[in-house]
């Protein structure tokens, strides 16, 4: 296949990817969009097989069979609650592939006579560096989300300095390559150093900040793919990689904005270390009294309400309570109660996490309200039922300038007539901050596992 024909075929792939993203702007067309993207990918793969330089097939076919079947099985088997770690994993392997391509390219072309073009060596280094960080960082994010390692920030003295020095060393090795040194160990140094940096960089970031990290790593892999495109002088890689890079960057900014924190604060702030006094302080929360309710009390409140808003958080995901929540909601609707769901942009562990879980439970998406719409509804809501959400409902974000989350836009559940908080215990939320909502006279607490509590509520409402 000639180079011109190849380029036009790659253009078809690019158009397919653009349409895929365009169709993602509405739930009714999104699925079709994903298929169009997949067709674009098949075209790109077929065209690449037909390239003159591709003469050795068995590596490709064996590799595709192994990787493809792993991807298919993992994607089919994964539970919806484990989706954030699955997204992190697929993101990481893409970054790893970009880094390996850089390694192979440098290994192949460096010993050739004459110096590398500057832009080629720069792109090799960028894709090696960014791809490796994305690979290692995604694996750490995966391990945190899968709870293979603790989700809380892992910090030690001088952490920033160690990370800074490491990054400086990686950049120095990169500059040496660009300056003309073609020593093979330099590219290895860049890759191994970047892998280590990826690990160290994600370790101090807390689980609640994962929506930002996952978006950022997604952007990294996209940029690494685009750099690979410069290396291989391949348009489809440049455009597709950069579309993803722009997308991930925008999502990262949106997530940061939804928490009213700068990206730097999220990445380097080690947010969510529990201060030793925080747990004790939370239990007392300014000396206010916490009112605990029984499931039967709450069932009565719900059954005779006109309007109930569910406020899901990570606790719902952990307890896998989304199906029971939907069942409770349908039961209430059958009694004539108006039901909706208030979704905070950073609730859960990845952007839009709650929406996917509730969609899995067959909640119709028009019932899922974004923060601003939901906040308009709270003043005329009888009961706000908070299911395993904490920081995104904390009124201190509005009122208390001393609070670490002051200024973060929240769901104003305290504007509802009454608030029910489903919670395991009085331990502080992920950010380790006390929540005055719990001692608000409007609030009652229903302690226990979210799934158990919701099941009791279902039984209670049925008995009414």
């Amino acid at each position, binding site marked *: 296949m000639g180079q011109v024909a190849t380029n036009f075929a790659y253009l078809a792939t690019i158009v397919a990817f*653009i349409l*895929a*993203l365009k169709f*993602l*702007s509405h739930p009714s067309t999104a*699925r079709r*969009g994903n298929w169009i993207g997949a067709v674009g*990918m098949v075209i790109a*793969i077929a065209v690449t097989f037909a*390239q003159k*330089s591709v003469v050795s097939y068995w*590596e490709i076919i*064996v*590799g*595709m069979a192994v990787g*493809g*079947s*792993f*991807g*298919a099985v*993992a*994607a089919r088997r994964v539970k*919806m609650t484990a*989706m954030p770690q699955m997204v992190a*994993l*697929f993101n990481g*392997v*893409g970054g790893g592939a970009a880094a*390996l*391509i850089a*390694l*192979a390219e440098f*290994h*192949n072309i460096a010993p050739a006579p004459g110096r590398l*073009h500057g*832009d080629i060596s720069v792109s090799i280094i960028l894709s090696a560096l960014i791809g490796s960080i994305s690979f290692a960082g995604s694996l750490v994010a995966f391990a945190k989300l899968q709870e293979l390692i603790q989700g809380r920030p892992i910090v030690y003295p001088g952490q920033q300095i160690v990370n800074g020095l490491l990054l400086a060393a990686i950049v120095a090795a990169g500059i040496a390559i660009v300056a003309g040194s073609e020593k093979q160990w330099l590219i290895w140094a860049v890759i191994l150093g970047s892998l280590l940096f990826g690990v160290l960089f994600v370790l101090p970031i807390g689980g609640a900040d994962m929506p930002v990290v996952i978006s950022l790593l*997604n952007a990294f892999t*996209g940029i690494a*793919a685009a750099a690979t495109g*410069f290396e291989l002088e391949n348009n*489809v*890689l*440049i*455009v597709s990689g*950069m579309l*993803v890079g722009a997308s991930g960057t925008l999502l990262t900014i949106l997530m940061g904005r939804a928490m009213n924190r700068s990206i730097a604060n999220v990445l380097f702030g080690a947010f969510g270390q529990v201060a030793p006094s925080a747990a004790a302080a939370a239990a007392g929360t300014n000396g206010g009294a916490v009112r605990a309710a029984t499931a039967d009390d709450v069932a009565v409140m719900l059954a005779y309400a006109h309007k109930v808003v569910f406020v899901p958080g990570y606790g719902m995901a952990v307890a896998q309570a989304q199906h029971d929540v939907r069942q409770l909601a349908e039961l209430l*609707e*059958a009694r*004539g109660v*108006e*039901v909706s769901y208030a979704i905070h942009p950073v609730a859960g562990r*990845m*952007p*839009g996490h709650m*929406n996917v879980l509730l*969609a*899995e439970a067959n909640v*119709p*998406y028009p019932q899922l309200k*974004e923060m601003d719409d939901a906040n308009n509804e709270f003043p005329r809501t009888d009961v706000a039922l908070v299911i395993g959400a904490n920081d995104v409902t904390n009124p201190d974000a509005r009122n208390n300038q001393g609070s670490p989350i002051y200024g973060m836009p929240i769901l104003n559940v305290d504007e509802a007539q009454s608030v029910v908080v489903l919670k395991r215990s009085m331990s502080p939320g992920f950010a380790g901050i006390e929540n005055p909502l719990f001692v608000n006279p409007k609030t009652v607490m229903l302690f226990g596992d979210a799934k158990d509590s919701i099941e009791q509520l279902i039984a209670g409402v049925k008995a009414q």
Partner: protein
Amino acid sequence: MSHALTLSFEVTILVLAIFLGFELISRVPTLLHTPLMSGTNAIHGIVIVGAMLVAGLGHKDTLTTVVGLIAVVLASANVVGGFVVTDRMLEMFKKREPPNAERAAQDGAAADGDASKREAPPTQ
């Protein structure tokens, strides 16, 4: 075409892609942010093209063979997993006929009868 000229075209399309990406993504509602992440994840699986170009080379040493093979494995997992997971997610986003809560609320006591009607199979 000279190398510098090629580079200038590449940089041009890179910059256009950045603007296009921002424009496309800013239209995606927060409702679909997870499928968006997962869908863009699948799209960066396009590195498979790079992996194939490396792995498909004719005369290559052991290092290139091994590295190219692993790159193809990783990129294929990225592509297939990405699209399949996204499809699974998007399959779930359904729009039921709005449950018409207002009417149900007005019906008050009659709401119980109303419930059985709404149990009818969803029309999709």
